């Protein structure tokens, strides 16, 4: 077992078009994701985040370079199922990911595909629903659930596959604040308690701040990579690339521009208040 669950090496990719030459959507991306880590990916619209995500479980194959999942190149067609069961993927719209019309049937879908024996599927379904806090709804029809609940079912459907890594492409984009909160709590729990590697693509800075590593993309390239505290210090560069920073960092940055000597690496409101207090005293 390698330490890196996903290894992306110098990957380029463009969407094929018969008529004209299309631009490179991924332009030499190199990225290694450690087993058990929580990585957030930021970048403005069209920067190639979703495209990169789809390289992580062989939905797309790179034009140049290689992607390794647990040491297997995604170009190895015979190993496709091994790759897909190692890296699960959750998308933005829960409605378009749910296959069955009963919650537990849907969670069972992936293990059924993998040929897991019935009794074990039962166990996995119960365990997974418990994990995402949806046991009560096992027999419900998914279309009657709220957005946040549906998205947690979609996550459960992937977790039931027992992947070592899950990639979530803007899973909270269509949810209300409460649903968002629930989904984020579930994701964090999966990472901390189950040791599942998480790659979270998001537009929300506060979601990105939850991660222990932040990757910022622009024009198909990785332009920043590091712990959120460090990355957010590059306020000017991020703003220039059309991204915002968390409000706390933004405030500290403005204070600094106006001559107040505060550090920039305070993410939570408490830390931020502390920093300002210390500077003003």
């Amino acid at each position, binding site marked *: 077992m390698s330490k890196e669950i996903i290894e992306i090496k110098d990957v380029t990719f463009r969407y094929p078009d018969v008529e004209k030459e299309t631009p490179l959507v991924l332009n030499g991306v190199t990225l290694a994701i450690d087993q058990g880590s929580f990585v957030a990916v930021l970048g403005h619209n069209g920067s190639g985040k979703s495209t990169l995500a789809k390289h992580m479980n062989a939905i797309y194959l790179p034009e140049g370079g290689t992607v390794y999942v647990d040491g297997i190149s995604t170009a190895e067609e015979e190993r496709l*199922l091994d790759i*897909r069961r190692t890296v699960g*993927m959750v*998308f933005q719209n829960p409605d*378009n990911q749910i*296959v069955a019309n009963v919650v*537990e049937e849907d969670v*069972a879908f992936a293990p*059924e595909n993998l040929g897991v024996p019935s009794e074990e599927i039962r166990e996995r379904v119960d365990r997974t629903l418990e994990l995402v806090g949806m046991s009560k709804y096992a027999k419900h029809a998914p279309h009657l659930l709220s957005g946040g609940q549906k998205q947690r079912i979609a996550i459960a459907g992937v977790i039931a596959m027992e992947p070592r890594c899950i990639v979530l492409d803007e899973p909270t984009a269509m949810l209300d604040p409460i649903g968002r909160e629930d989904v984020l709590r579930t994701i964090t729990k999966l990472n901390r308690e189950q040791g599942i590697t998480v790659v979270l693509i998001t537009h929300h800075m506060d979601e990105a701040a939850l991660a222990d590593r932040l990757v910022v993309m622009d024009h198909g390239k990785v332009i920043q990579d590091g712990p959120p505290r460090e990355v957010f210090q590059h306020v000017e560069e991020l703003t220039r690339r059309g991204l915002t920073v968390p409000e706390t960092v933004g405030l500290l940055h403005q204070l600094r521009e106006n001559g107040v000597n505060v550090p920039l690496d305070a993410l939570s409101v408490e830390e931020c208040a502390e920093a300002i207090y210390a500077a003003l005293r």
Partner: protein
Amino acid sequence: MLKDITLGQFFPGDTIVHRLDPRTKILMVIIYIVALFQAKWFVTYGILLVFLAIAVRFSKVGAKALMRGMKPVLFILIFTGVLNLFYNTAGTILWHWGIFTVTTGGIRVAFFMVIRIMMLISGTFLLTYTTSPILLTDGIECLLGPLKKLRVPVHELAMMMSIALRFIPTLIEETDKIMSAQKARGADFDSGNLIDKAKALIPLLVPLFVSAFRRADELATAMECRCYHGGEGRTRLRQLVYTGKDWITLISGLALLAVVCVLAYGFGL
């Protein structure tokens, strides 16, 4: 308004009829329909009616719900009745006016035809009322299983059916949304003649289709991400198991068919 449409209506319950294996129920409906078409006279119809009544009784569905199911086909019922009444001219003439003739034979045929259709509909409705759509699909997939050898894509068809069932509520909701959105832009779905109304549907159907295709594309990707690769090597969460009560039901169904056939062909009852 569109939410009222219920397709594949199912009344959840825990009666013996609900608990029967879906395959048993599907086979029973087939046997019942075959028997119904052999029935000739009051005795055989009566036996089948009693049989249906027992099944309805056990299912706790209620005659009212069954009768409600008859409403959409009321027109067909009346039409068939009237047609048969005038078409058949055997027996003694009871009434005559122009080209219309009512005979005893006509009345008999019309009466039994209407009864037959009503019993047929009740029987099939009992199946959909007591079997959840997923179980029904599972049952059909299993019964058609042998056709896989003839390269009939049974699993794929069943999968399509269950996905269609899953997306009906989603698409109905979407239709509602698009309708409201177009109404807000001044679309009018309710007035004008038939052609106007058909034209008014275009701004509804186009976005609906576009969105359905997008959904289909996303769903296919999501299914692939969850290792879907056709029916090969697939297991199921819920295995269909044939139990004693299924065998008993099936055997009694076959016995019923035999009795009806003997009475109808042997004695003309």
